[in-house]
């Protein structure tokens, strides 16, 4: 299956600062793809180039199997980090405007706008001006405006920033439904826990470069190293004494055991069983945060 989105060697500099330095990535169809990295890593610039809001100095953007054209933008739903609505427009007009802007057929448009207002519980506010709505309601309208044209690819820049908990839940539900419908989502975030819960695939970006990318589960497994989580009747004393154990850290009532070099999981477990009563033993995957910090260190950028 051809990927929904491909970025090939994107570069962009502003006044001599290299904001994006050769970013390439592939987003397969039907995946939730996380573009991760700290603030200032070049995520927003990359996304803006993908949306043709700014032109790249070098590189190519391919969507739906071909080089991106302006017409393709009508098939993409974009939620920028800096987002908002016309304050003086009424809710329904706002949706109609955003729909028209994405070439939604006129006869479809009114029905879709009403459907969304119904779904979000805002049907009775259709004629209210945006500025009369609460911040939370405005965020819902914004989301509806992004999805009104039923995009095949969703591009969300820091979608959860500034959302209240209820809307965070709503956004997650909408993303899940979108994915369940076989559509593709690319979103950027600097909060690793969020990405960890939502993404199938990730790309880690630092200082304009992709330093790690691929399937999240695979990355975790590969970067798991040789450590294990152990639940046992011990505070660490007896375990630490074993020659096959390099280090032990206690956390949350369990132990994180680092095997000595050359010791595999089977040998470690056999040794452990001989000294403590093992109730649970499993491979300890590193958090994305840990992987990221290590990857940045390794890449030395």
């Amino acid at each position: 299956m051809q990927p929904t989105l491909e970025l090939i060697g994107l570069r962009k500099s502003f006044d001599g600062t290299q904001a994006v330095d050769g970013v390439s990535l592939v987003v397969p169809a039907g995946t939730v793809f996380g573009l991760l990295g700290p603030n200032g890593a070049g995520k927003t610039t990359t996304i803006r180039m993908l949306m043709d809001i700014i032109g790249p100095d070098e590189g190519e953007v391919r969507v739906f199997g071909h080089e991106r054209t302006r017409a393709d933008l009508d098939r993409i739903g974009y939620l920028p980090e800096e987002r908002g609505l016309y304050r003086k427009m009424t809710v329904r007009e706002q949706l109609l405007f955003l729909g028209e802007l994405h070439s939604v057929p006129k006869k479809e448009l009114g029905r879709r706008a009403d459907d969304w207002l119904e779904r979000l519980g805002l049907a009775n506010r259709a004629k209210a001006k945006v500025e009369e709505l609460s911040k939370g309601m405005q965020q819902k309208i914004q989301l509806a405006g992004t999805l009104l044209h039923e995009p095949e690819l969703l591009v969300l820049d820091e979608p959860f920033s500034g959302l209240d908990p209820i809307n965070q839940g709503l956004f997650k539900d909408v993303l899940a439904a979108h994915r369940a419908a076989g559509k593709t989502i690319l979103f950027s975030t600097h909060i690793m826990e969020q990405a960890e819960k939502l993404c199938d695939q990730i790309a880690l970006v630092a200082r304009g470069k992709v330093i790690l990318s691929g399937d999240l589960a695979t990355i975790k497994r590969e970067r798991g190293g040789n450590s294990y989580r152990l639940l046992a009747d011990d505070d660490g004393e007896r375990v630490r004494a074993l020659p096959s154990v390099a280090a032990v850290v206690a956390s949350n009532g369990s132990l994180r055991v680092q095997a000595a070099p050359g010791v595999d999981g089977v040998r470690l477990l056999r040794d452990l069983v001989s000294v403590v009563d093992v109730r649970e033993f499993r491979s300890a995957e590193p958090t994305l945060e840990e992987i990221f910090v290590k990857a940045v260190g390794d890449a030395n950028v």
Partner: protein
Amino acid sequence: MSKLAVIAKRDYLSRVRTPGFWIATVAIPVLMAAWIVLPSLIMAKSRGGLRLAVVDATGKVAPALQREIAKLAKEDDGPRVNLRLEIVPPAADTAAQRAALDARVLRDEIDAWLWVPPTLFADNKVEYHGATLSNLMTLGALGRVVTRVVGGQRLAAAGYDAAKVEKLVAEVEVDQVRVTKEGDKAGGGLGDFFLAIGLFMILYTTVMIYGQMVMQGVLEEKANRIVEVIASSATPSELMAGKLIGVCGVALTQIAVWLVSFLVLTAPRLMASMGAAPGGLQLAALTPTVMAHFVGHFLLGFIFYASFFALVGAAFNSPQEAQQLVSIATIFLAAPFFFFMPVLNDPDSTLALVTSLIPMFTPTVMMLRIAIKMPAAWQLAVGYVGMVLADLAMVWLCARVYRVGILMYGKRPSIKEIWRWTRYA
């Protein structure tokens, strides 16, 4: 519908639907109507007249005055003043009589009294005492009548026939006829002057107001953070052009309402039904040619200044930050105020020619010249070509700044930084 049309439509409708727009649109024709109709109404009302007591110590002035005023009232084209005289014989006690007359004025039995002293023929002075002295037209007319009466008396005393002399020294009227390609146009003069100033003012104000409206629109889109949402489906050029077209449509709607009301209000039949034009003023006809030039100059002037205002809106984050560059645009737009009088006075002067061919002044100054006296065709052509070239350069420059500026938040950029944006790929 193209993205450009969607944006232009939104910008147009969101402004035309506001009450503020219609208040401004209707206010001007209402003022115009008031300016044309009110003087006639006021004059009709003033036929109630001034109640004037005349104390004539010479015994020669009052009866003649009465006759003259009666004659004046019958004339149609004279100043419409109506004086109702009450001739009061002079009393022995002058001071007491003057006090009594003052008292009558204060009791509102009369509006004023005229004191004709016995020394009138020697020192040429009468006294006027009134509750108000601001009725300048009436006072002027009274002064002229008294002068004529006294002059007549003097001529008679010297043995001349006053009526004959008056005929001999009658003032020569200069009938003003303006020569234009469309044929001679009687009247004109003052009317042309007002028409020229009116068109000049409307051009200046609309370009100024609607140019700034473009800027506020862009600033608002930045402040609301909606600009990037739109920029993801329309190009910055479509966004900027859509806004210019939408706002320009709003301006043209307003101008159309104004021009139509002007034509209706100054229609010959309507003017006739209200009697002669106020104060002897004949309104100049707004010919289709002049109107077409007006729209052309407005459009080209608007594009020039509104693009610049769009640049300013995109570059900054608030009206306060934008102030410095707004004042630069204002200086250029308002500069013709410094030389519009000389241009009006001599529309063929070198000053008029040179300033009307400088593209940023062309819209206002050339319009002024067109309304006064149609400039040579080559001058009009050079003016238009100059404006089109200036517009192209301005739009190109502004679009380059605009596409970068709309994504820039935070710190106020320096002029140097804004200039650097134009060189981004």
